[in-house]
C-alpha cells in the first residue's frame, strides 16, 4: 500500500491533519482508522484515554506496527500490513466485525475522501474509468459509525477543491459526514451547510474559501489548529 516517498511539506500537512483528528476522539471511544492518511492518527492518540482501535478485518485493539522480525502473518490491518494487538484486544470474524461497525457500536470512523459536499455526501471509492478500487468496508463504516470524520488534503493533486457543492463522483454514502479535517481547515457538516470552525495556523480564511468549491459559513470566533 506504500506509494512513492512524500515530500517533507506534504508529510507535514498529513501529520497536522492526523493530530487534529486525534483531538476529536472521545475518551473510551472505539475508532476505525482507514488506510493511508487516517492511519497516521494512531500516532497521536491521547494517552490514558482508553481509546481502542477497530480493524474491520476482524479485531479490536489495533496496536503499532511490529519490528519486521516479529511480524505475524495472521495479524494484519485492513491494508494487509503487519500490526500488533494491545492488551485487552480481541479477534472475531467478518460477520461480527461488521456487526460492530453497522450496529452503531463504532464511535468514530476516520477515512479519506475524494470529494465531500454541502450535504455531507462522501465520494471516496471510485473514479469511473480510472480508479476501480471498490468500496471495501467504507460504505458500511460511513453508514454505521456514530461519527464520520473525513481526513484529507484540502485540494487534489491538480490543486482543485475536494470540498464541493455537490459530489460528481459515485457516492460512498449520502449525508453521513460529520466533520472534515484538512491541512487548511476543520469543517463541521450541519443541517444548514458547512461550518468553518477552525483554520490551520499558517492559512487565512480567504485562502480556505478560495480553495473550497462549496458555501462555507465562518464561525465568528474562528480558532486555529
Amino acid at each position, binding site marked *: 500500500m506504500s506509494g512513492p516517498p512524500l515530500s517533507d511539506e506534504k508529510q507535514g500537512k498529513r501529520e497536522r491533519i492526523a493530530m487534529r483528528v486525534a483531538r476529536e476522539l472521545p475518551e473510551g471511544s472505539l475508532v476505525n482508522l482507514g488506510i493511508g492518511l487516517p492511519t497516521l492518527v494512531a500516532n497521536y492518540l491521547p494517552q490514558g484515554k482508553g481509546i481502542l482501535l477497530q480493524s474491520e478485518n476482524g479485531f479490536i485493539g489495533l496496536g503499532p506496527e511490529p519490528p519486521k522480525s516479529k511480524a505475524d502473518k495472521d*495479524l494484519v490491518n485492513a491494508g494487509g500490513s503487519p500490526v500488533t494487538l494491545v492488551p485487552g484486544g480481541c479477534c472475531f470474524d467478518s460477520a461480527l466485525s461488521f456487526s460492530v461497525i453497522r450496529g452503531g457500536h463504532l464511535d468514530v470512523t476516520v477515512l479519506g475522501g475524494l470529494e465531500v459536499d454541502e450535504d455531507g455526501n462522501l465520494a471516496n471509492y471510485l473514479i469511473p474509468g480510472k480508479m476501480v478500487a471498490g*468500496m471495501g468496508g467504507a460504505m458500511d463504516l460511513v453508514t454505521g459509525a456514530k461519527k464520520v470524520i473525513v481526513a484529507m488534503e484540502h485540494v487534489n493533486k491538480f490543486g482543485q477543491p475536494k470540498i464541493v457543492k455537490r459530489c460528481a463522483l459515485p457516492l460512498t454514502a449520502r449525508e453521513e459526514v460529520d466533520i472534515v479535517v484538512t491541512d487548511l481547515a476543520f469543517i463541521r457538516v450541519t443541517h444548514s451547510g458547512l461550518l468553518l470552525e477552525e483554520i490551520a495556523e499558517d492559512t487565512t480564511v480567504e485562502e480556505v474559501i478560495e480553495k473550497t468549491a462549496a458555501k462555507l459559513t465562518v464561525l465568528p470566533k474562528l480558532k486555529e489548529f
Partner: protein
Amino acid sequence: MKKVQTPEEAVHHIHDGASIMVSGFMCCGQSLSLIDALIRRGTKGLTVICNDAGFPERGVGKLIVAGRVRKFIGSHMGTNHVAGQKMNSGEMEVELVPQGSLAERIRCGGAGLGGVLTPTGLGTDAETGKRKIDVDGRKYLLETPLHADFAFVKSSACDKLGNAFMAKSAKNFNLVMAMAAQHTILETEKLVEVGELDPDHVHLPGVFVDSIAFARRR
C-alpha cells in the same frame, strides 16, 4: 472423520465454470495452497467470491492474473492492478459489494435466510438492481444470499472432524463461507487428533467442512 488430502487431491473434482468462495483478507487467512493447486490443475471459467482481489503474485489474485476467473464478486480490488485491467477490458465481470453486506449475504446463504435488510449502500451505486424495503418508516436495501459450489477456507489448526481454530485476524470470512458452500475444503497448517481442540476454542465447527487439505504454514 473427514478425508485428509493433499491440496492437489482436494481440488481435483472442481470443474470448469464452478463457483468458489475463497476466504481471506489481503491473503491473510487464505488457502494459498489450494489456490496454487487449482491453478496447476488448469480449471477455468470460475466465479470467485472473495473479499478482495489480493495481489497479482499471491493467493486469489494469481487466479485472476492467470485468466481463470470469469466473474469476481468482492468488495475491493485496488491492490491488484491486473484485476482492474481485466474488468475494464471486459475479460472479467466484476460485482462490487460493500464488505459488511458481502459478509451478511454469504451468512444468509449458509444460515438459510432469504436475505437481510441494510441501510449500507442506500443512495449509492450499490443500490443498482436491489429492492428497497421500508420497515418502521426507514428504508433499507434487500441483500440476497450468496451460495457457491465450493469454499476454500483456511485454519491455523483443525482436528480430523474439521473443527477449526483460526489465529488472530485470520478468521475473517472463513466461518460464513464454510457454511454457504455445497462443498467446503479446509486447508490447515496443523492437524490434530479429535479431542485435542478445546470445544470452547473452535471458531468453525467441523460439520461445515467436507474435506481437509494439509499444507505447511506460508
